[in-house]
């Protein structure tokens, strides 16, 4: 996979007529050059891994959740609401507990939003693809309403929430760096998801439902329940992605809170082979590409857009190879 990615990277640079060696140097120094570069890579990989894990769990259960964007946003809104109405100004709660409460609220917000899509699918037969697209729009409009209405900053000048006090932000090893300790959270989550999917009965049931829901039902597994569970976990992960972005990096919400993190989780999960542990790798690779491309943008006309090309080509290549090998293995679709 790594060789393939490097090949795609070099090809992309060639196609856009960028100096290959120079650009590679800039990318690598921007992603791994010094401790600042490493910290940028880690901070970018953090929400990517969370949304990627969300996609792994949902897609493994056969639920094509493309509402990561909406769940991310709703997570952020719930976190900001709790921060504004409960935590800020109250001295009784220590900062670390406050951060934790915000994160829990974020996960809850994402899960609630995903639950809506799951309910629509299980009870009313609405395709998850369609309902999550619709819910993304509703969430983004709701965010626009919140940051210019109930959650707006006290001064009410611009559509932004108040900046969180440092006590509620995730702690940082050094104030100069972007790095925050929240980056360990998605790695822990990946381990938990791995154990859940491959070492527990509910995880086995989830994968079985994703492989063949009819077979699962024939074995007296309540497929609907499993699908709802999968979406709840998925939404929690996407909400947490919003959470670490909110209290780790941004500190406030604006209308541009989500920079496509929800959608970018899809290539992360796919290139991680829909496996939680390999997703750690692919999230780091893409985090590094994003961090490196910031450096590239300083010296050339290329930038983050280049990473999108690499991701897309990698996914298409992966899908193409997989489709061909599947065609060899199973030429006839089962009834």
């Amino acid at each position, binding site marked *: 996979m790594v060789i393939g990615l490097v090949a795609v990277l070099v090809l992309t640079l060639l196609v856009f007529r960028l100096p290959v060696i120079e650009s590679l140097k800039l990318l690598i120094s921007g992603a791994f050059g010094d401790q600042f570069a490493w910290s940028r890579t880690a901070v970018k990989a953090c929400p990517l891994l969370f949304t990627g894990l969300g996609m792994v769990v949902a897609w493994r259960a056969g639920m094509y959740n493309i509402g990561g964007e909406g769940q991310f946003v709703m997570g952020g809104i719930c976190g900001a609401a709790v921060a504004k109405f409960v935590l800020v100004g109250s001295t009784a709660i220590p900062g670390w507990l406050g951060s934790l409460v915000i994160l829990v609220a974020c996960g809850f917000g994402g899960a609630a939003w995903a639950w809506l899509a799951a309910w629509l699918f299980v009870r009313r037969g*609405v395709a998850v693809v369609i309902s999550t697209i619709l819910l993304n729009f509703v969430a983004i409009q709701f965010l626009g309403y919140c940051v210019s209405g109930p959650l707006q900053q006290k001064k009410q000048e611009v559509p932004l929430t108040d900046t969180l006090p440092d006590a509620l932000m995730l702690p940082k090893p050094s104030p100069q760096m972007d790095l925050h300790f929240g980056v360990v959270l998605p790695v822990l989550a990946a381990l938990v998801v791995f154990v859940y999917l491959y070492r527990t009965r509910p995880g086995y049931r989830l994968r079985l439902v994703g492989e063949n829901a009819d077979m699962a039902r024939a074995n007296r597994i309540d497929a609907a329940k499993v699908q709802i569970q999968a979406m709840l976990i998925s939404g929690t992960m996407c909400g947490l992605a919003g959470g670490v972005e909110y209290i780790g990096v941004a500190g406030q919400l604006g209308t541009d809170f989500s920079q496509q993190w929800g959608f970018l989780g899809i290539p992360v999960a796919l290139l991680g082979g829909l496996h939680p542990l390999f997703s750690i790798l692919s999230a780091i690779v893409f985090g590094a590409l994003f961090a490196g491309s910031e450096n590239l943008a300083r010296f050339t006309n290329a930038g983050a857009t280049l*990473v999108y090309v690499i991701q897309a080509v990698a996914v*298409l290549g992966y*899908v193409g190879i997989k489709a061909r090998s599947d065609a060899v293995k199973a030429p*006839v679709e089962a009834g």
Partner: protein
Amino acid sequence: MEFLPLLQYSAPVALAAMGEVITERGGIINIGLEGSMLVASYFAMLACYVTHNPWIGLGAGVTGALVTTLLFGVFAIYLSADQVVVGSAVNLLALGVTGTLFRSKFGQSGQLLSVPRIGGFHGVDPIMVFMLASAPLLWLLLRKTGWGLAVRACGEYPKAAEAAGFSVSRLRLQSLMVGGFYSGLAGSYLALVIAGSFAENMTAGRGFVAIAMVTFGRWKPQFALIAALLIGCAESLQYKFQTYGWKVPFQMMIALPYIIALIVLVLVGRGANAPGALAQPYRKEK
């Protein structure tokens, strides 16, 4: 708001949505719609910038969208890959390719460029007329022609269509390309009529709005057109409200069509008019 500006404002979503109706009726959900619109916008602007002729721009835009849609089709139809996966990748690819090309040609931030626009007669331009004519035309195409019946069969129950002697792959590709053509018009319209320019990610989710409007319009071209006009109306109301200084959250107005679409889906549920085999890859039995 007056009617003509509203029509113009809603045209990209309306065109893309009507095309997507045909695509989805054939059983394919083109998640890459956003991407093919964006590619159309870029190449329409580029060709127009080079030749100073908006009609050549339109041709280039539509061609760009057709190529993008074909890429989606090869993966989604001939490789039976998952449509959501391929569509997401196509969107990313379009965003990346247009962004990178735009930056390398017009600079980091993209200078303020302006290209000649497609003119109209008293605010009515030819594409707008074509859009209005498309609703009945596409309805006729779906309901009254053999091709339309065959396409709908591919969307409802592809095995039956195959058994009746049709090639599901070919019909699905054709219906997909009709959608691609309309997405090309939609993207070009955005660049050549509304903006007269290009900006990174200028479609800004309109492709997804169009997919949502197909659902809201119950998979019928005429309703999809009305749905797109309604959402344009809701969005334009926000400026009205601001000028009057009303304290109505305009975001609620914008979110309303999506919420209504969801409620309709909840109420109608499985009995919805959604094509039976929507988004399911079809593998020919050997």
